[in-house]
């Protein structure tokens, strides 16, 4: 059963135009965010506020005469508990940025109405999603570095201790599994349309298990394993271990990094599959529009 064929207009699928999809999505995202300067600046200060809470707590406890730092060193491995908190807060802000930027991206475009415009184009979804992710990675990575530097200045932390190169490696590779987690978030948000409070809560659960304010090794048995199954936990600890003396989970940095690598290879694929399945189910039911 065929119909007449009338060509495909200006559509021309080449590696160059395929790359063009990715590049255009990335570029459009960067242009749009550059038009929201206020929120960008807020974003940089969020982790500093997060870090300020436990740091102030620590300072006030210490003022009673007990050497908090000593105790801290026993449980965490480092006496520099300001740096510990700052790193935790910065990695958490990266996690929440990634889940927010990628996970809520679909939902946001659904609400504004642009999602269907994108979905009717012949652009492959992974190229579009790749563009959005590329943008999110750039933004999250930049935010981490800048917040960390500003925070160091404010809290009197030496940002250039330990092995910075390895720390950067941990952040960069750690971001990849986060990408996959974001897609699972995205799928969840597509399903449960009014998911804001649920997602907010999930972010805090994530914050708890990845050890923003404490080393996950202090968690009791079962909870510790839950925590260790979260890729962001490995990223946080990796950064801390390379900059401070908290120790890697498996003694050497390359073993920890290898485990993140495995996460990085598996989780995004899994996330993408979950996401595309949800999308298909949606198209079989209500569709991608806001109804």
């Amino acid at each position, binding site marked *: 059963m065929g119909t007449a064929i*009338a060509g495909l207009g200006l559509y*021309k699928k*080449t590696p160059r135009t395929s790359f*063009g999809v990715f590049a255009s999505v990335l570029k459009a995202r960067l242009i749009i965010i550059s038009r929201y300067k206020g929120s960008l600046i807020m974003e940089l200060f969020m982790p500093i506020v997060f870090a300020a809470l436990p740091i102030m707590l620590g300072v006030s406890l210490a003022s009673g005469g007990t050497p908090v730092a000593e105790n801290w060193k026993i449980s965490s491995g480092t006496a520099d508990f300001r740096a510990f908190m700052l790193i935790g807060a910065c990695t958490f802000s990266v996690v929440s940025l990634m889940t927010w930027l990628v996970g809520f991206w679909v939902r946001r475009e659904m609400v504004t109405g642009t999602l269907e415009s994108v*979905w009717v184009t012949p*652009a492959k979804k992974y190229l579009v999603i790749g563009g959005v992710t590329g943008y999110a990675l750039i933004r999250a990575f930049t935010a981490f570095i800048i917040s960390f530097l500003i925070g160091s200045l404010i809290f009197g932390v030496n940002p250039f201790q330990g092995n910075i190169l390895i720390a950067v490696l941990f952040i960069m590779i750690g971001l990849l599994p986060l990408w996959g987690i974001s897609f699972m978030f995205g799928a969840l948000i597509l399903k449960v349309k009014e998911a804001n409070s649920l997602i907010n809560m999930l972010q805090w659960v994530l914050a708890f298990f990845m050890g923003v304010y404490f080393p996950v090794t202090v968690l009791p048995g079962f909870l510790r394993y839950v925590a260790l199954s979260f890729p962001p936990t490995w990223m946080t600890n990796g950064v801390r271990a390379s900059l401070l003396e908290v120790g890697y989970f498996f003694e050497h940095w390359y073993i920890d990094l290898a485990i993140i690598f495995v996460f990085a290879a598996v989780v995004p694929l899994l996330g993408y599959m979950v996401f595309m399945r949800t999308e298909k189910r949606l198209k079989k*039911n209500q569709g991608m529009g806001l109804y």
Partner: protein
Amino acid sequence: MPRAIIKVQNMSKTFISKERKKFLRPEKREIQALKSVDLDIYDGEIFGLLGPNGAGKTTLIKCLTTLLIPTEGTAWVNGFNLQKEENLVRASLGCMLMGERGLYWKLTGRENLEYFGALYHVPKEKRKERISYLTDLLNLQEFLDRTVETYSSGQKMIMAFAKSLVNDAPILFLDEPTVTMDVHAARELRRIVKELNREGHTIVYTTHQMFEADELCQRVAIIDRGEIIALGTPTQLKKSLKIQDVVNLEGVIPKGVAEKVKAIPGVKDAVIKDVKAGKSTLGVMCDNSRKLLPKIMEVLLENEVQIEYIQPQDITLEDVFIAKTGRALSVDTSEVPEEEKGGAGGRV
């Protein structure tokens, strides 16, 4: 024999929606938005889908543009199968589906066109050419480089229209494109649609306004409650009515009067078409209005109707719709209970 460029086969779409009437216990409700639609759209025509709000026009278009997966049935678009060759179907289409909402408001018009051009795999050099061509065609110069949020609603719609043309696809889907435009802009859009059609584009145009379908389309499908109830050229459709006259009476017309007028022998149908500021328009279809008018007036006077304006009128596509459904096009489908369906006007 014209060749079909879109072939729809036995297409059905059922939505299952949760109704939250009872607290914590949502009831499931099925809405059959499309019921076994079969349809051929010919290469090179302007094809109109005419029907009231809620008839299923958008659902049909969303199925044909791969945004929804039909519950049953399939279609071929530009030679490609809807389910098996999704991306080539998409590459064959230009779409204006949700009007201005399809644009990024924080990007300029040009940035939007660049972006969507890229998503349609239009090579970069071609994109530039195309944008400058569209700028001339649609007079975009004045606002092309401003962010869309600063546009008037007419400018947003024109930009959304430009977006649907950015890949110069052989088939264009326009879903109620003029709905928020002023009269002048709407006329201009229809002029361009005709011009694009002359260049060889096939255009599928949905509307709930009969005059648009009449003026623009070579063939029209009248759709109601997910079914195509009539199909043909506007002339054929109007001729199929087999009545001579329609008289429109405008004034203050209480409810229930239409039924009484309908009971007059020789009157085929009487329906309130339009209500504006307390004034209604009663459309009366009959074989010979000159003969029947005195009788109609008598019934109206008995019921204390104030008539301000009487106008005999040529048969329109709306009259075709009324004859088939007993309802006016302006009535939202969801406001009419399902039982009434087919109850009034006889089906041909």
